């Protein structure tokens, strides 16, 4: 726990240092960064909304890692999840909201689940490493989703590359107007908690962890290996898809080209900071969301260029995976 606090503290400190070194107006940037989420109701709400999405994605990333799988296809799984929910919402006949919303979220999760399951199967059947297959499949799917949004689903009247809005009955309840905070925050907390309990208190969760650490052990125990070769990565994909669905129904309400970009990679960052623990994912998501909102605020206050913002974000993500942090974390885990 101490180590995690140290990780978080040093990330915030390095960010500050970078802003001081690189911003044209260091004082305004630093002030903007730290006050980021707390400047007003709107920024606080969007901070929590963003943390919710990251919690779901981060839990998904963590589940794959714990089961010994690398799911690098988060970007495509999130986007496909969102686009599946979107297509279902736009193309299917109208449903009442209390039925439609869960159904669309299910469509989102199912899309991510099956995409990742396919990579798991390629690994199990043909020994194609999921490290490469998830990534390649995801990269292709991003283009397909881009095409769907700019082609068949496109709103011709819009100046944006975007689809029409979903019927309002499907959208998640807003809870802190005018901010974009919505009931997805409860979905996120439930997801992280459920994943934590399942992983640590259930037999299957226990086996999944054992499989992640030593697949041979599961084999010699006479447990069906296939289940644990496919389950972690498929569940991971399912949660990524769900994150895409929540982003759609809670924040955007329509598809805009590239609207979920970044969530997949940031999910991995969340999982790594959380030491691969779903329970800690919410806390790690809060940290990443803080950095995201803080960087935006620093940019808005002091003419920091967009590219510089991206660079600072990139440096932070690299730090997260540094050996100094990971070696300590492993000790806590094992």
């Amino acid at each position: 726990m101490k180590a995690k606090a140290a990780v978080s503290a040093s990330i915030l400190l390095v960010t500050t240092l970078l802003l001081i070194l690189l911003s044209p107006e260091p004082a305004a940037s630093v002030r903007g960064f730290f006050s980021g989420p707390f400047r007003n109701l709107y920024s606080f709400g969007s901070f929590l909304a963003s943390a919710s999405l990251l919690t779901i994605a981060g839990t998904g990333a963590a589940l794959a890692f714990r089961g010994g799988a690398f799911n690098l296809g988060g970007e495509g799984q999130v986007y496909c999840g969102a686009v599946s929910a979107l297509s279902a919402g736009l193309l299917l006949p109208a449903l009442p909201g209390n039925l439609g919303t869960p159904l669309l979220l299910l469509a989102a999760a199912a899309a991510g689940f099956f995409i990742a399951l396919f990579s798991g199967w390629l690994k199990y059947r043909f020994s194609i490493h999921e490290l490469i297959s998830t990534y390649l499949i995801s990269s292709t799917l991003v283009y397909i989703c881009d095409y769907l949004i700019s082609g068949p689903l496109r709103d011709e009247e819009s100046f944006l590359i975007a689809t029409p809005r979903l019927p309002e009955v499907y959208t998640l309840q807003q809870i802190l107007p005018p901010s974009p905070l919505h009931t997805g925050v409860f979905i996120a907390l439930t997801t992280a908690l459920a994943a934590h309990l399942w992983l640590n208190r259930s037999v299957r969760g226990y086996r999944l962890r054992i499989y992640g650490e030593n697949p041979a052990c599961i084999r010699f125990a006479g447990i069906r290996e296939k289940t644990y070769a496919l389950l972690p990565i498929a569940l991971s994909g399912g949660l990524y898809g769900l994150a895409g669905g929540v982003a759609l129904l809670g924040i955007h309400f329509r598809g805009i080209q590239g609207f979920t970009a970044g969530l997949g990679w940031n999910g991995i960052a969340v999982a790594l900071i959380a030491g691969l623990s779903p329970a800690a994912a919410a806390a790690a998501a809060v940290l990443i969301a803080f950095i995201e909102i803080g960087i935006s605020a620093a940019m808005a206050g002091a003419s920091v260029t967009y590219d510089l913002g991206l660079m600072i974000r990139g440096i932070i993500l690299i730090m997260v995976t540094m050996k100094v942090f990971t070696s300590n974390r492993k000790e806590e885990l094992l």
Partner: protein
Amino acid sequence: MKFSGTSKRWSAAALTLLLVLTVPAGIAAAGRAEAPDDSYRIAVFVPGVTAGSPIYEMLAEGARRAADEFDHARANIIEGGTNQGEWPGKIASIAAQGDHDLIVTSNPAMPEIVNEVSQRFPDQKFVFMDGYLEGNPSIYTLRYDQYQQAYLAGYFAGLVTSSTMEFAGEQLKIGLVAGQEYPDMNQSILPGYREGAQDAAPGTEVDFRVVGNWYDASRGKELAREIISGGADVLLPISGGANYGVLEAAIEGDAYVIWYDTSGYHEAPGTVIGSTAIMQDTATYETVKAAIEGSLPFGSADKAGLQEGMVTFITDDPLFEEHVPEDIRRALISRMEELAK
């Protein structure tokens, strides 16, 4: 593996150093006095990045120039990046912050995004250059006459394709490569281009292609190649970064290019032989100045073209004079004079 004592000490030292360096700076920053209340703060929201985008450079430049004329005004440039999906959230967070008296932005897509944001933050004033929205009391828009601008490009293209210039082919055929289809493209630019060409050389056909985004230069090149091999000899790319792919194809395929919105003669002398332009810097300067003075009619939407001097075809560039025969230049200029009346 346990942390060795040395690396632990190193980490501790590094952390302490960071703390020593950053915390005082943070405190100093937080304690800095806010700008006085009577100041007029302008946020220029760039939907993209400024560097390398002349239209947005002109937007920033115009707003800065207006702000510099007043002691109490200050313009702050905020870049939104190229992901359209992030723009609504970013512009909403600037509006929510509430410390800017005016948000200036430019892009035909912005009114659609902001109209919704504006309902949540009704007190925030917005100015859109190159956009159109009427009737929202917090929003003023100024759009350029896209029909007229495209008409000029088309008229020039028609003159060239029917001429005896080196690369002008047999067919009366010209091309237009768009980044995406959107209402202005379909309702103003394409018809303007087509009608301009028709007026210059009756019977001229327009080969219209769409890239599908504003950055894919290789796709732009591929489309331009197809257009050129179809017999067109003048191309008008309106496709952002993909314009450079079109340009490459034209250089390789011996065709001419007309640049849109900003002067493009220097991009490829001899290939880019014409350039329409919008005076976004002047227009932004005048609009923002009126806003600071309090005389801008929020709620209304204006349109500016040749008559107002906000849309033009650049005819005084030496490269234009060097590469375009005199009779074509004269025909174009006299048509512009007629339109400006």
